[in-house]
C-alpha cells in the first residue's frame, strides 16, 4: 500500500524514513484479541443492566435474558469476525465502545417500554431498535467487506455532494407532524420514516474530504494577509459561502438548528485541518454567529428554543409561553433527582419527561437512573470514540483519510455536544439524537456505518507495509490536481501516478 502513499510535498527521504519506521507484518500486534476481550465487557454491561431492570421492576430476571444476551453477542461477534477478516489492523476500541453504547441504549429503551401507560404514546421500541441495530451491524459488516480501501470514496466526491444535498433538502418537502415541534428533519412514507440528516453527515464528510484535498493548497497559499489574518481569494471563498448559505437554508426551511450547526461546524473544522490556517476558524465563527443572529431574530422557532434555554421552568408557570415545552425543565429535574449515583435502573421516574423521552431526551433517563456517575461514564465513552477517531486521523497516511477521519470524529463529537448540551441546558436545545443511545433507526444505522469507515481508515493506517523493500522510491513529488483522483489501487504499484513517472 505504501506505493500509494499520497504524502503531498514530502521529501522522498522523509517517506523512506516513515516506511522504515513501520515494522514488518508479523511483528505488528493487530490487537484483535484485545478487541474481543473489550467486547466481552461491552456485552456484559448491558446484559447486567438488562437483568437489573427486570429485577428492579418485576422482581425477577427477565424471561428472555438469555435470548437478549445471545442476540447481542451474535451481533457483536459477527461484527468482530468481519473485522478480523476484512480489517485486521483496525482500532481495537471503536467496536467495543459502539457496542456498549448501543447495548445501553437498548436497555434504557426496554426500561422505558416497561413504564407502560406512564409514558404518553408509549409504543414498544426495543424490538424495533434491536432490529435496526442488527441492520446497522449488517451495514458495518458490509462496509468492512465491500469497502476495500477508504480512498475509493474519493471517486465519489461530487456524487456525494449531490446525494448529500438531496438528503438535506428532502425533509423540507415532507410535512412535519404536530409533535415534531416545528422541526422538519424526517422523510416519511406512512409509518416508516428516516432522518436523512444522519446519513448526510457521513456523505457530506466524504464530499468535504475529497473537495478540500484538492483545494487545500489553493485555499491555504493563495491568500492575502490583512490585519494578521490570511484572507482567501474571492473564488476560493465561493464554496464556503455556498455551504454557509446551505446551512442557513436548512435552518430556515427545516427549522433544524442542530443539523445546521453540525454541518457548518464540521466544514469549518475540516477547512482548518486542510489548510492549517487559523483565519478560517475566525472566518467560520463570524459567519456562523452572523447567520445564527440573523435567523434567530427572524425565526420564531429558534427564538422559542432560546427562550426555553434561558428559562426552562417558564413552561411550568401559570402562563406558559406559546409553544413552550416542559421537556428541558423535566430533564433537569430528572438529572437533579438522580443525583450522584442515581436511583438505579428501573427505579427512577424519568417518564415524567414524556415527549421524546426515548429519543432526544434519553440522556435524562440515564442521568436519573445511573446518576452523575453514569453520565460521566457515558460522556467518557463518547469522548473515547472521538479520540480514537482522531487518533486514526493522526495515524492515517493519506490526506483524504486524515480529512475523512477528522470529519467523522468531529461530526460525532459535535453531535454529542449539541444533543447532550441541549438536554442538560448547557446550550439551546436542537432536535438531534444521541448517537447509539437514542431510539431511531436512521441514527443507529448511520452511526454504525460511521464507525465502520473510521475502522477501515485505521486498518489502512496501522497495517504494516507489505514489503518495504519492494517500494519503488519515486524521485519527484506527485502533482497536485484532479489526477490524484485516480483509482487508489491498493497494493497495485503500477496504478500510482507517482510510481509510474
Amino acid at each position, binding site marked *: 500500500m505504501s506505493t500509494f502513499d499520497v504524502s503531498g510535498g514530502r521529501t522522498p527521504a522523509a517517506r523512506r524514513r516513515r516506511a522504515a519506521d513501520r515494522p514488518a507484518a508479523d511483528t505488528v500486534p493487530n490487537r484483535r484479541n484485545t478487541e474481543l476481550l473489550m467486547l466481552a465487557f461491552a456485552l456484559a454491561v448491558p446484559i447486567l443492566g438488562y437483568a437489573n431492570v427486570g429485577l428492579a421492576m418485576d422482581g425477577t430476571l427477565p424471561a428472555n435474558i438469555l435470548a437478549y444476551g445471545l442476540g447481542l453477542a451474535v451481533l457483536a461477534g459477527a461484527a468482530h469476525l468481519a473485522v478480523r477478516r476484512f480489517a485486521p489492523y483496525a482500532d481495537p476500541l471503536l467496536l467495543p465502545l459502539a457496542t456498549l453504547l448501543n447495548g445501553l441504549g437498548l436497555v434504557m429503551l426496554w426500561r422505558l417500554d416497561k413504564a407502560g401507560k406512564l409514558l404518553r404514546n408509549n409504543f414498544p421500541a426495543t424490538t424495533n431498535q434491536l432490529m435496526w441495530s442488527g441492520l446497522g451491524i449488517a451495514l458495518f459488516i458490509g462496509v468492512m467487506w465491500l469497502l476495500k480501501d477508504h480512498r475509493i470514496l474519493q471517486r465519489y466526491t461530487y456524487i456525494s455532494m449531490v446525494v448529500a444535498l438531496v438528503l438535506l433538502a428532502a425533509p423540507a418537502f415532507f410535512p412535519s407532524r404536530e409533535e415534531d415541534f416545528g422541526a422538519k428533519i424526517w422523510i416519511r412514507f406512512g409509518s416508516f420514516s428516516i432522518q436523512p440528516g444522519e446519513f448526510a453527515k457521513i456523505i457530506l464528510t466524504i464530499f468535504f474530504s475529497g473537495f478540500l484535498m484538492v483545494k487545500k493548497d489553493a485555499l491555504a497559499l493563495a491568500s492575502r494577509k490583512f490585519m494578521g489574518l490570511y484572507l482567501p481569494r474571492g473564488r476560493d471563498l465561493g464554496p464556503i459561502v455556498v455551504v454557509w448559505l446551505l446551512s442557513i437554508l436548512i435552518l430556515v426551511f427545516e427549522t433544524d438548528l442542530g443539523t445546521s450547526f453540525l454541518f457548518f461546524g464540521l466544514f469549518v473544522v475540516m477547512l482548518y485541518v486542510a489548510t492549517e490556517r487559523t483565519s478560517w476558524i475566525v472566518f467560520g465563527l463570524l459567519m456562523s454567529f452572523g447567520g445564527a443572529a440573523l435567523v434567530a431574530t427572524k425565526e420564531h422557532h429558534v427564538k422559542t428554543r432560546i427562550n426555553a434555554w434561558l428559562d426552562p421552568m417558564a413552561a411550568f408557570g401559570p402562563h406558559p409561553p406559546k409553544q413552550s415545552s416542559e421537556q428541558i425543565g423535566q430533564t433537569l429535574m430528572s438529572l437533579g433527582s438522580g443525583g450522584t449515583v442515581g436511583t438505579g435502573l428501573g427505579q427512577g421516574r424519568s417518564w*415524567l419527561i414524556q415527549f421524546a423521552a426515548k429519543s432526544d431526551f434519553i440522556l435524562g433517563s440515564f442521568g436519573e437512573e445511573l*446518576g*452523575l456517575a453514569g453520565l*460521566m461514564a457515558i460522556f467518557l465513552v463518547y*469522548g473515547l470514540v472521538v*479520540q480514537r477517531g482522531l487518533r486514526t486521523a493522526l495515524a492515517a497516511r493519506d490526506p483524504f483519510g486524515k*480529512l475523512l477521519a477528522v470529519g467523522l470524529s468531529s461530526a460525532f463529537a459535535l453531535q454529542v455536544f449539541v444533543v447532550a448540551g441541549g438536554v442538560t441546558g448547557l446550550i439551546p436545545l436542537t432536535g438531534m439524537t444521541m448517537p447509539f443511545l437514542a431510539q431511531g433507526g436512521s441514527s443507529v444505522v448511520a452511526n454504525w456505518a460511521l464507525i465502520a469507515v473510521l475502522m477501515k481508515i485505521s486498518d489502512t493506517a496501522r497495517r504494516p507495509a507489505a514489503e518495504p523493500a519492494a517500494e519503488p522510491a519515486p524521485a519527484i513529488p506527485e502533482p497536485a490536481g484532479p489526477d490524484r483522483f485516480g483509482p487508489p489501487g491498493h497494493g497495485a504499484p503500477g496504478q500510482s501516478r507517482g510510481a509510474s513517472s
Partner: protein
Amino acid sequence: MNKPIRRVSIFCLVLILALMVRVNWVQGVQASAWASNPHNERTKYDRYAYPRGNIIVGGQPVTKSDFVNGLRYKYKRSWVDGPMYAPVTGYSSQVFDASQLEKLEDDVLSGTDSRLFFRNTLDMLTGKTRQGGDVVTTIDPKVQKAGFEGLGNRKGAAVAIDPRTGAILALVSTPSYDPGTFAGGSDADSAAWTALKSDPNQPMLNRALRQTYPPGSTFKLVTAATAFETGKFKDPNDETQTPETYILPGTSTPLVNDSPDEPCTDATLAAAMALSCNTVFGKIGAELGGDAVRAQAEKFGFNNDKVDVPIRAAASYYPSGSSPDGTAMDAIGQHDTRATPLEMAMVAAAIANNGSLMQPYLVAQEGAPGHAISTHSEHQMSQAVSPATAQKLQQLMEGVVKNGTGQRANIPGVTVGGKTGTAQHGQDNAGKPFAWFVSYAKDSSGKQVAVAVVVEDGAAQSSEISGGSLAAPIAKSMMQAALGK
C-alpha cells in the same frame, strides 16, 4: 496536517469536558434544588413510594399506609377514627397535598429527613423495607374521644392542655371530615374533596386552632388578672364600686347583665365572677384602660401570630386604640376581642399552673419509640401572672363552679375551676351566641388538666344557649377523662 488535528482533538475534548462540567453542576451542585423543585412531581410520588411513618396517639398509630400498587402511587394513606383525629393529623392526599402534622412532619413521615439517613442506610444494607419515621403526639385518646363525642353533631371545638407541661391532650373540631375519603387520586376522591371544600359548615377548618371567636365572659379572667396584677384589687372579696346601671363611658348606652335581677351592684370580685357580671368587669376594664388589659392579654398569648404547636394557631386578638366604651366591651370579651379555643385553654392552664404559661405542644417525639430523632423539651412561654395572682384567680374560678354559672362542671373529689361565656356576635348580635366554657381540674395526686370548649350553635333558640349549660358538661367529661375519674 497533524498539528491542526491535534488542536481539533483538544477542541473535541473541551466539548466533552464542558458536558461533564455541566452535568456535575446540575447533578452535583444544583441536585437538591432540582429534586425539591415545586414542579418536580417525584416528591409527590416519593411520599407514597413506600410505607409512610405513622402518627401515634396513646401508643397506637392512628394512621395506616395501604399498599394499593397504583400506576404512580404504590401506597395510600388511611386513618383510624379519621374524623376524630383529623384536627390533629390533617390529611395526606396523593393529589391534594397534605396539611397539619401530615404536612409539617412530612420529612419525618416520608423518611426523607436527614436525621433518618443513618437508619435508612442501615435498613437498606440489612434488606429491610424502607419505611418513614413515626411521629408521637401528646394526645390522650380518652380526652379526645370525650371532647369529640361531647360536641357530637354540634359545631364547635375543644382543647385540653396539661398545664404543667403544655402538652395538648385533646384537639377537637366539629363538624370534622374523614381524610380517607380523598387520600387517593380517583374521581371519587376529587368529588369528596370538592364537596368538603364547598361545604358551608367548613368541616376542614380546624376550629380549635385556626378559628377565632369572641371569647365573651371567659375573657373576664384576663380582666380580673389585670386588676390583681396592677394592684387595683388586692383580694377576691374586695367590693367593687359598681352602680346598678353602668352607662358605657362617652355614650348613653347602658351595659346590661344577663338578667336584670342579678345582684351585681357593688358585688365582690368573687361574686361578680360567679355570676358573670358584665357591669362589674366592663367598668373595671374601662378604668384599667385598654393598654393595661392588652399588656396582660399578650402575656397570656394574645396578639401572638407565632403560636406553633407545631401547627400554627391563628393569632388571638386584643385590640389597641379602642374608644372608652369599646374598651369596656373589649374587657368582657366582646367588641373586637377574639380568641381561639387553644388561647382560652392556655389562659386556664396558666392560671392553674400558678401563672406559668407553658409552651403548648402536640408532638412529643419524632421517630418511633426507642428510635427517637427528637423529643420535645418543655419550656415556659411566659410568666403570665404572679403565683399570688394566679391563686386569687383560682379562687375566683373555683367559686364559679361551686356556686356560680359553672356548677355543671363540678366533679366530686376534684378541684375544678371554670368560667362560662356566652358570646354575642354578628350584626346587632343577631347570630346565635357562642357558648364557652374554660376550666381546669386538679386531683389530689397532682394531675392537672385545663380545657376550653366552644359550641357555635348549641340550641335552636338563642335564649337557651349558655356556656354553663352547653359547654360545661363537655368540659367536665374531658376533665374526667384526663384525670381518670
